[in-house]
């Protein structure tokens, strides 16, 4: 379970990091993304994500964008 953003999009960074037994700092080094930006993403405070960021995360975590992000219809 990740943090849900204001747009009902949940980022599953915690679960993927746990599955890969990786820390945020290691991910930051490998994906060349700052820890600050990763924290924003992890805590659901991001408003948008660049394709370059998404691609770097997928490459390092060996996953698909759909594994990283899910959308839930909160209107129901």
């Amino acid at each position, binding site marked *: 379970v990740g943090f849900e953003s204001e747009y009902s999009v949940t980022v599953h960074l915690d679960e993927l990091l746990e599955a890969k037994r990786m820390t945020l700092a290691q991910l930051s080094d490998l994906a060349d*993304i700052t820890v600050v930006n990763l924290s*924003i*993403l992890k805590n659901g*405070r*991001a*408003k*948008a994500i*660049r394709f370059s960021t998404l691609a770097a995360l997928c490459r390092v975590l060996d996953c698909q964008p759909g594994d990283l992000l899910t959308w839930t219809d909160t209107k129901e």
Partner: protein
Amino acid sequence: VTHKPSWTAGFLYRLSILLLVFTAGFGLFVVAGAILGFGAGGNDVAVHTTVDADRVDELPPGTVGPDTFDVVVRVRDASAEQLRWFAIRDLPPGIVVIVVLWLIRGLLKSVRDGDPFVARNVTRLRILAGVVLIGIPLANLLTSIFAGELAASADLVGPPLQLALPGNALLGGLAILVLSEVFAEGLRLRADLEGTV
């Protein structure tokens, strides 16, 4: 802030403070004059009034002019009441100028500090537009009312009431309103950018 503020921004900021202090000082002088009626019995006041065109001599033959002319009558040894109206008459435009300068000072300060795209500046620009669109016509109306009272105190006919929105105020106010919306949009874009990872 990642860059040094421009020399122009710093200069304009200091200039706005200087103008604000000067205008506020002048305003205080006017208010003191209105309250104390200083100089009564020894001062002259300029009273705006109108005279019928047929009372104006030596106009060139064939002159096509208005029915009345605006003239200024100098009243010598004005009474305390006349001095008070004379001082109060110039207050409304003074207040408008002080409010405008105060808002401009705030805007320039944010530019000087390298952070102009903030919610406060959107509010400042909206207030500025309101002052230009509503404050200036209102100040003109009040000035004409006070000028009428001054003229009446000297047994003269005052100038007509000014109940109009000057074209330059309308255009200027609308331009500032558009600018405030540009700033509001800039603010939204900035929030989006800061939330992009």
